Structure formats: structure tokens, C-alpha cells
């Protein structure tokens, strides 16, 4: 009885949805409901995708974009955590950085692309620094907020168990912040990817975004679709990886 119930609960609706969409795509394209330029059939896109993988162009572009995104993320997240913790602990630092963070957080960092290109060129350095710049603000805010809201019961318990200030920070405040910091990290990753791709689209210099925009300008729509599909899969995989990490290393977190 139980087995049958589990089978019937299998996500057949969700799978059906996806299959329906793909079939609709293929039929609409083949029936020329839209010009093949606008909507190449799924089969043609798949072929193009396979070709890009085979001749190595996709690998190079993807590697370049991901490398830039990760370097920028590493830089931005680390700096963000450090600054967030510093702001939470040292009043002067908080006072100094507060207006900068308040202005920086809501502003579209994309608007700064031309500045970064001006200063650092169109190759990878400008992209990496731009990604760091884009990611740092949510990480600072999340870390700061977490460090400030550590329960006083934790702090008091630790003090009466013999913790000094240094061990309080390392062994209580920091671990208490991990779940919140990870959540901001999960937000930062897609921001990093978007910023990388957009910067490449605007300024060129190789990578997924640059190829994507060139394909659009030369009306190579199968490549456009293929690259979008790849970006989608990369995003999915990364999110899946982060969820796995969270469910293992942060399984102690409540709520």
C-alpha cells in the first residue's frame, strides 16, 4: 500500500510540465509558427549545443566565465564577511562604512561596468573586480546583521563557562553566524554569475556573455539558445551543490 502511494507521489506533474514545454517548443518551431530565426527547433539547438561542446568553444567560454565569477565571488564574499564582522564589532568602522553600504546596496552595480573597464581593461580583471564589488554589499549586510543578533544567552553562557573575548568571537559569535552567512552566500552566487555574464555582454573580452552577444549580432540563434540552456544548467547545478553543502554542514541550524 505504501509503495504505491510513493510512486503516485513521484513528481510526474512536474516532469509532464517540462516534457510538454519541450514538445510545444519543437512543434511550434517546426510548424513555423515563428520564423526559424526567432525560434529554432529544440532539436537544432541540441545539435548546435553538441557541436559547441565537441569543438571546445563552449568549454573555453564556460571555463573563462566561471573562473571569473568564482574569483570575484571569493574576493567579494571574503571581504564582505570580514567587513561585516568588523562593522559589527568596531563602532568606528560601522560609522565609516554605513553610508557607503547604504548607497551601494540598492544601486545597480552594472552601471559601474564602464568605470571598471576604464580602470582595468576589458579582460578578466575588470570582470572579477566588478563581481566582487557586486557581491560584497549583500554579504556585508547579512554578516553584520547576523553578528549583531547573536543571542545574549549564548554570550552569557559562554562567559560563565570560561570564555575570554577571543574565544567568544571564534567559538560563539562566528559559528552562530554561519547559517546566515551561508544564506547570503547563496544569494551572492547568482549575483556573481549574472554580473559576469552581463559584463561580458557589455564589454566583451571573451566568455559566455561575449559569445552570446556575438551570436545575437550575427543572428546565429541556435547558439544563442544553446548558450542560454547551458547557463540555466550551470545555475541549477550550483544551486543543487549549495543545497547539498547546507544540508550536511549546516544540518544543526534550526528553522
Amino acid at each position, binding site marked *: 500500500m505504501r509503495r504505491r502511494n510513493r510512486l503516485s507521489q513521484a513528481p510526474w506533474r512536474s516532469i509532464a510540465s517540462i516534457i510538454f514545454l519541450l514538445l510545444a517548443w519543437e512543434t511550434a518551431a517546426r510548424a513555423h509558427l515563428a520564423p526559424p530565426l526567432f525560434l529554432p527547433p529544440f532539436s537544432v539547438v541540441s545539435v548546435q549545443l553538441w557541436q559547441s561542446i565537441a569543438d571546445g568553444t563552449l568549454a573555453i567560454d564556460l571555463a573563462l566565465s566561471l573562473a571569473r565569477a568564482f574569483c570575484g565571488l571569493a574576493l567579494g564574499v571574503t571581504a564582505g564577511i570580514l567587513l561585516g564582522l568588523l562593522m559589527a564589532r568596531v563602532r568606528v568602522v560601522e560609522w565609516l562604512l554605513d553610508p557607503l553600504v547604504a548607497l551601494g546596496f540598492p544601486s545597480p552595480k552594472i552601471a559601474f561596468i564602464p568605470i571598471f573597464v576604464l580602470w582595468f581593461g576589458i579582460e578578466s580583471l575588470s570582470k572579477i573586480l566588478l563581481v566582487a564589488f557586486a557581491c560584497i554589499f549583500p554579504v556585508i549586510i547579512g554578516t553584520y546583521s547576523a553578528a549583531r543578533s547573536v543571542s*545574549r544567552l549564548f554570550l*552569557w553562557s*559562554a562567559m560563565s563557562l*570560561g*570564555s575570554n573575548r577571543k574565544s567568544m568571537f571564534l567559538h560563539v559569535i562566528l559559528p552562530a553566524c*554561519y547559517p546566515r552567512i551561508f544564506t547570503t552566500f547563496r544569494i551572492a552566487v547568482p549575483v556573481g554569475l549574472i554580473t559576469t555574464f552581463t559584463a561580458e555582454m557589455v564589454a566583451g573580452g571573451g566568455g559566455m556573455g561575449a559569445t552570446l552577444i556575438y551570436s545575437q549580432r550575427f543572428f546565429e540563434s541556435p547558439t544563442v539558445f544553446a548558450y542560454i540552456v547551458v547557463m540555466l544548467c550551470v545555475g541549477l547545478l550550483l544551486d543543487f551543490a549549495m543545497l547539498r553543502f547546507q544540508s550536511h554542514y549546516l544540518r544543526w541550524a534550526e528553522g
Partner: protein
Amino acid sequence: MRPRIEIRRVSKTYASDHGPVVALRDTDLEVKQGEFVSIVGPSGCGKSTLLYIVGGFLAAEGDVFVDGVRVTGPGTDRGVVFQEYALFPWLTVHDNIGYGLERQNVSPTEREKIIGGLIDVIGLAGFEKRYPRELSGGMKQRVAIARTLACDPAILLLDEPFGALDAQTREIMQDELLRIWLETRKTVLLVTHDVTEAVYLSNRICVMSARPGQIIEQFTVELDRTRPREELVLSAAFNEIRNQVWLSVRRQAIAAGRQNANAS
């Protein structure tokens, strides 16, 4: 012999949205070595505040001495158990209990011995690797008590430790606490709003007035605690004391109610 804890003319005022609030005014209390003292009183009377001041977490006017030394901050001589949410969620049961031992650089072998012993005392063998998230309320408080006992403090400060538990678990935990106290004879200061609990556990009960808190009445409790709970709680002696304490607290609660009505 010098009392273990001396509280002399302690006053505490704190700021709030509605102006300064006097939580305690000229409170006096003495706790002797090995005593089990409960502080009861209406909600908001300042009994937890007093406990936190003894613990060294809050500053106050007046003098608090522990073993003749003025209290200036928290210390391992005064262990604290809070009502809830004080266990470190990122540490397992084993590591939570061992936290204080690690901070004091106790050797690993010694640490394991103490932790192992305490796990048996609180009856959580087999749960060492669990996280607080996976424990029930009662189990969490057991771990909290064990964590405090690991550092072998001379004084135990308990802030409504069983307040978040259901009635049955509360009774079981009270028996556990009583058992531990009878064995170790530590000096205990317990804050509770449950009068029955206070009578069951302590040998002295202090009733605190409505805010600003002061110790209004004290009751000595002389009961034979080796008797089982069923006998003790149903006995006439127990209930006589309980009724007296309850009446005293009730009067304070009514006064506090009038205070609130006047304030708003």
C-alpha cells in the same frame, strides 16, 4: 561562616521606551553554603534581573559578594542554566557539555571522563552525537544542566529552568535536579514562578515584591526530601507551606496588577 552569596542594597534601573524603569531597589539577600534558595514573585518583579546581576551579566548599584569577593563579571564559579535557547546549536551534545572544559584547557582524557560521567548522570547515553535541534525540551535542559555542572561551579544560578517544559517533564526534571543537589550539595539560587516547584526543591523561599523588587518575605522549608514525590506533595506539611507562600505571592501579584492598571 561567611555566606556564599551576599547581596547588599542592590538597585537596578534600566532605560525603556517609556522612561527609566526601576527593576530592583535596595534588595538584600544572603545565601549560605549548600543552601537551595528559590526566589518567587509576580511576573516582571525583577527576580531574573537579580539572578543576572549575581551572575555578573548585568551591572548594578550596590554590592554583590561571592565568597567575600566582589562580583565584577561572569565567572566559572557561578554556573548558569537559562530557560531555553542557550545550548550552542552548532555543537553536539558531547561538545556542548565539554565546552567549558575545553576553554579551561582540561586534558582530553580528563575531559572525556567528565563528559562521560555527566552523560550518565543526566541519562542521555547514546545521544552524544546529536545536535540540540534533534532533542526534546527536557533533553535540552538536561544537556544545559550537564554543561554547567562540567565546570564544577560552587554555585548554580537557575533562571526558570523548567518553565518551557510541559507539566510532566517538569516534574521529572525537578526530581533530577533534587537528586543532583542532594549528591553534590552545591549552593543553588533558583528563580521560578511555580510556587509548588519552589516548595518542592528549596530549603528557603524568598518572595519578591512587585516592581521595584525587594525581598518581602522569607519562608524556611524543612521537609524530608528523601520521601517520594507522591507522599511529599500530598502531605499536610507540604501543603501548609505551599499555601502560605502562594498567598504571599498572590498578594504581590495583585499589587503588580494594580500598578499596571494605574500606569496605563
